[in-house]
C-alpha cells in the first residue's frame, strides 16, 4: 500500500451474462495523473469492464485494487466512496428530472432536510457555463435536450464530483467540435491535478492528444498495452482489429 | 334456429303471473311546508333481488302517500353508507331508511341524522341504537335456527351439514351461527364451511370444491341469495341432485327450480315487499310527526316443495 502501487489495478476480470461471456479475463492498470486510452472493437467489452470498475455491475471472477488495496464494489455507491467517477456510455440520466437535478443526483445541495433549489440551479448554471455548455434552461427536463446537450450534462456531473479516478465512456460521441475540444482540455486539466483518467473513444486522433498510454481489448480480453509514444494511428487500428495478428497468435489467444 | 322447439314449449307454459300482495295500513302522508315529503333510502347494493324488492315496496308507499323517495346504493361499503347518510342530512330530507352493511359502523351516522332531527328507520339489518326510531326486520339468528330445526326433522338428527356462507355479511354470519347451534343440538354435525363472498360465481366455485372434497355430502345450507344460486348451479353441474338435500335463504329462479325438483327441501323467504312497505310507512309517519311502532317484526316464510307455487311472486321485481 505504498505510494508506488498504481491508482487502479484490474486483474483477470471475468463477467458473463447467462451464456454470453462479455469479459474473459481483463488486466488493466491506471496510474495517478495518467490518462489511459481504452480501445477496442464494438462489443469488445469496454463498457462492461468500466461498469464493473464503477460498481454498476458485479464481476464473476478477478480482482480490483484501488491504491493497492483489494476492493469489492457491491453498489455504485461503494465505488463512489473510493473516488471513482464515471460518464456512462448510456449517460444514466433520468429523463423526467430537470438538468440541475440530474447534475446533482445523489448529492443535492440542501439546507437542513430541504433541497436548496436556488443553490442547485445557480450552481448548475455555473458548472455548465464553466464547461461552456449551452442548454435552454437548468429547469428543462433532460429528456427534451438534444443528444449533445445530454452528454455535456453527464460529463459535467462526473467532473463536478471531483473523483480520483475519472472514467469517460465515449464522452464525446455526440459532441460538436468546440465541445470536444473543451472535453479534451478538461481531461488534461484533471490529469494535471493527479486524477487518473480512463478514456474510451473511437476517435483515435483524440487519444493521441491526451493519452499517455493505451490498453486494447479484443473479444472480452485485454490484448495489448503500450505507451502512446510507441504508437501511431495505423498501428493502433491494427491492434484494435488484430489485423496483423497471425492466425496462430489468435489461436493462442482464444485458448488462453 | 337452435332454440325453436324450446320457444314453442315456453309459449305453451306461459302462465299468469301472481300478484304481489297489497300493502295494508298505508299512512296518509303529509306536506309539512307545502312541499312533498322527501325520504332517503340507503340500501346495501342494487344487485341482489332482495334489496330491489325492498325498494319496490318502499316506492309503492311513496306513490300512495305522495312522498318523494331517493334511493342511494351503499355499494356494499360501510363508509359509502355513512357518506350517503351525511349527504342526505345535508340536503335536509325528512326521514332516512337504512339497510346497514355494518350494523355497528352505521351508528355514528344514524346519530348524526337523529341530532339533526331526522328520524331514521332501520330495515333488514338490526341497528341496536336509541337513535333508530323504528326497526323493521327479521331475526336472522332465530330464522337460521328455525332452518336448522327444519333440517334436523328431514335428517332425523343424523348426518353432516355443510355450509356455503358469506363472511363479509354480518347478517349471514348470524344465520350461520343460529343454524349451527340448532343442528348440533339436534344431533347432526357441521362439516365444511366455505366462503362464497356474497357473489354468485365465487359461491359456485366454492360449492363445487366443497362437493368434490365431500363426495358423499348429503346436507348443505346456503346463508343468502348469491350463496344459494351458486350452490344450486354447483349441485347441477356435479350431477348430485339425487344425492344432496339443500336448504337456504332467499328465492330465486334456480332455487325455485330446485324446490320443484325436490332436492331443495326448504328456503327461508323474507317478506321483502313487506319490509319495503313497513319501513317506508314508518318513515312517513315519523316525518309527519305521527306515532309509529319501535319494532316491526316481519315474519319469514318457509317455502317448501309443497307450497312453492304460492310464493312465485317473489321472483318478480314489481
Amino acid at each position, binding site marked *: 500500500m505504498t505510494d508506488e502501487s498504481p491508482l487502479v489495478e484490474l486483474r483477470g476480470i471475468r463477467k458473463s451474462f*447467462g451464456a454470453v461471456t462479455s469479459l474473459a479475463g481483463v488486466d488493466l492498470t491506471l496510474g495517478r495523473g495518467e490518462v489511459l486510452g481504452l480501445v477496442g472493437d464494438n462489443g469488445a467489452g469496454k463498457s462492461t469492464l468500466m461498469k464493473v470498475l464503477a460498481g454498476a455491475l458485479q464481476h464473476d471472477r478477478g480482482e480490483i485494487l484501488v491504491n493497492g488495496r483489494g476492493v469489492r464494489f457491491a453498489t455504485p455507491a461503494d465505488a463512489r466512496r473510493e473516488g471513482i467517477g464515471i460518464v456512462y456510455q448510456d449517460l444514466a440520466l433520468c429523463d423526467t428530472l430537470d438538468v440541475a437535478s440530474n447534475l446533482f443526483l445523489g448529492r443535492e445541495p440542501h439546507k437542513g432536510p430541504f433541497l436548496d433549489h436556488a443553490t442547485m440551479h445557480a450552481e448548475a448554471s455555473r458548472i455548465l457555463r464553466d464547461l461552456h455548455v449551452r442548454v435552454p434552461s437548468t429547469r428543462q427536463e433532460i429528456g427534451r435536450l438534444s443528444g449533445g446537450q445530454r452528454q455535456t450534462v453527464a460529463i459535467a456531473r462526473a467532473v463536478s464530483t471531483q473523483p480520483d479516478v475519472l472514467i469517460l465512456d465515449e464522452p464525446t460521441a455526440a459532441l460538436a467540435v468546440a465541445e470536444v475540444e473543451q472535453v479534451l482540455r478538461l481531461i488534461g486539466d484533471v490529469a494535471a491535478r493527479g486524477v487518473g483518467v480512463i478514456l474510451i473513444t473511437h476517435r483515435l486522433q483524440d487519444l493521441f492528444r491526451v493519452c499517455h498510454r493505451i490498453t486494447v481489448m479484443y473479444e472480452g480480453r485485454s490484448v495489448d498495452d503500450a505507451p502512446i509514444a510507441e504508437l501511431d494511428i495505423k498501428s493502433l487500428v491494427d491492434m484494435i482489429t488484430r489485423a496483423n495478428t497471425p492466425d496462430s497468435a489468435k489461436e493462442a489467444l482464444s485458448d488462453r | 334456429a337452435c332454440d325453436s322447439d*324450446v320457444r314453442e314449449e315456453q309459449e305453451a307454459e306461459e302462465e299468469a303471473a301472481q300478484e304481489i300482495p297489497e300493502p295494508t295500513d298505508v299512512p296518509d302522508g303529509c306536506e309539512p311546508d307545502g312541499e312533498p315529503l322527501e325520504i332517503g333510502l340507503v340500501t346495501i347494493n*342494487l*344487485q341482489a333481488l332482495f334489496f*330491489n324488492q325492498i325498494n319496490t315496496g318502499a316506492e309503492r308507499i311513496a306513490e300512495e302517500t305522495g312522498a318523494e323517495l331517493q334511493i342511494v346504493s351503499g355499494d356494499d361499503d360501510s363508509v359509502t353508507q355513512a357518506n350517503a347518510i351525511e349527504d342526505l342530512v345535508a340536503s335536509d330530507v325528512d326521514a332516512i331508511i337504512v339497510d346497514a352493511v355494518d350494523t355497528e359502523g352505521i351508528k355514528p351516522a344514524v346519530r348524526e341524522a337523529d341530532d339533526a332531527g331526522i328520524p331514521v328507520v332501520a330495515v333488514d339489518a338490526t341497528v341496536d341504537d336509541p337513535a333508530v326510531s323504528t326497526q323493521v326486520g327479521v331475526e336472522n339468528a332465530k330464522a337460521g335456527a328455525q332452518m336448522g330445526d327444519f333440517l334436523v326433522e328431514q335428517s332425523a338428527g343424523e348426518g353432516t351439514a355443510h355450509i356455503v356462507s358469506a363472511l363479509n355479511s354480518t347478517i349471514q354470519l348470524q344465520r350461520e351461527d343460529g343454524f349451527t347451534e340448532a343442528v348440533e343440538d339436534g344431533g347432526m354435525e357441521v362439516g365444511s364451511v*366455505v366462503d362464497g363472498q356474497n357473489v354468485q360465481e365465487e359461491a359456485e366455485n366454492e360449492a363445487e*370444491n366443497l362437493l*368434490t372434497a365431500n363426495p358423499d355430502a348429503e346436507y348443505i345450507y346456503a346463508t343468502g341469495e348469491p350463496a344459494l344460486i351458486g350452490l344450486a348451479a354447483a349441485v347441477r353441474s356435479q350431477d348430485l341432485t339425487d344425492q344432496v338435500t339443500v336448504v337456504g335463504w332467499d328465492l330465486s*329462479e334456480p332455487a325455485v327450480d330446485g324446490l320443484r325438483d325436490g332436492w331443495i327441501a326448504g328456503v327461508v323467504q323474507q317478506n321483502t315487499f313487506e319490509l319495503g312497505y313497513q319501513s317506508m310507512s314508518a318513515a312517513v309517519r315519523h316525518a309527519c310527526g305521527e306515532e309509529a311502532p319501535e319494532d316491526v317484526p316481519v315474519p319469514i316464510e318457509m317455502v317448501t316443495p309443497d307450497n312453492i307455487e304460492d310464493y312465485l311472486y317473489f321472483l318478480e*321485481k314489481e
Partner: protein
Amino acid sequence: MTADTGSTATEGPGSADARDGTSPTEPGPRLARILNDANKPTLLMVGVTVLLFAALGVATPDFLTFANLSNLATQVAPIVIVGVAMTFVITSGQIDLSVGSTIAFVAAVSAEMLVAGLDSSLVIVLGILSGAAWGLVNGWLAAYQRIPPFVVTLATMSVIRGVALLRTEGFSVPIDNRLMLAQLGQTDLLGFSVSAWIALVVAVLGAILLNHTRYGQYITGIGSNEESVRRAGVNTRRTKMLALVFTGAAAGLAGLLIAARLGSGSANSAEAFELTVIAAVVLGGTNLFGGRGTIVGTVIGALITGAIANGLTLLGMSPFLTPIVTGCVLILAIWLNLRGRDIADLASQMLGRRAAQ
C-alpha cells in the same frame, strides 16, 4: 466475443473470416441454447406449477382426480379467456379495468335477449359483438383521444355496469334451462366443459397471435418503446385500440359462458374480476409496464390461482384461514420462480462456458 452460439465453430482458431462477423444463426450447443433462447421465466413457472399440483395432490387425494381437474378447468376458463386478451393489453403498456363490468353487461343483456325471444346463436354473436363494442369505446378514448387507459377503463367500468344495472334494475335475469346457450353451460366434451375447451382454443390462438404474427410483434414493441414502433411506420394507435377491442370481445365471450353456467345473467356478476385477471397475467410473467408478454405464462398464472383456491377448499381449510394461506402460497410460488431463474441462469452460464472451451 465468446458467446454460446457458434463461438467455437466460427470465431475460434483457424476461422479466417472471424473479422467479418459471426454467423449469428448457426446452431450452438443445444441445451445451453434452449435455456438461453426459450422464455426462461415461463419454463420455470411450469416447474413451479407442477410442484404446486404435486403438493396439493399429496395433501388431498381428491385434488388430482379427473373430475376435480375438470372442475378446475371450468373454474379458470373465464380467467384464461379474458387473461389471454389482457396479456395483449398489458404487453402493449395498457390496462383494462372494465372487463368485469363487460362480463356483467353481456351476461345480463344476453339473458334479456333470450327472454325477449332471440335465438341462442344470434345472442352469442351479439354478446361477443357488444363486448367488442365496449372495447372499441375504450380503445378509441385511450388510443385516439390519448386518455390514459387506466382512467378510461376505470370510468367505463362504472358506466358499463351502470348500464347493465339500469336495464335489469338489479334483477338477475333467468335463462331457460332448455335453451341452447344454457345447454352449452352443461355440456361436456371428453369430460371437459365447453368453457374449458373454448379457453384452450383462445389460449392457442392468442399464443399464435402474440408470437407468430406482425400484430404480436407490434404489441410487444409498443410496450417496449411505442415511439420506435410508430417511427417504423406502424399504426400504433390502431394496434393499441385493437388490443382493447380484444379484451372487450373476450369479456363478452366470458360473460356468455358465465351466464350459461349459472343459468342466469346478472349485472352483479364478475365484481373485482379485473383484479383476478390482471393478477393471473402478471403472475405469469408478463411485465405490468409492457414490453414482455407470455400467453403460456398467463394460462399458468390462472391455473396457479385457481388451483390454490380449489385445493384449499378440498383440504377442508377453514374459510378464515384460506385468504391467509392463499396469499402466502402466491408469494412462495413467485419467489421460487425468481430464485429458480437465478439457478437456471447459473446453469446455462456453466453450460455455455463449457461449450466455449
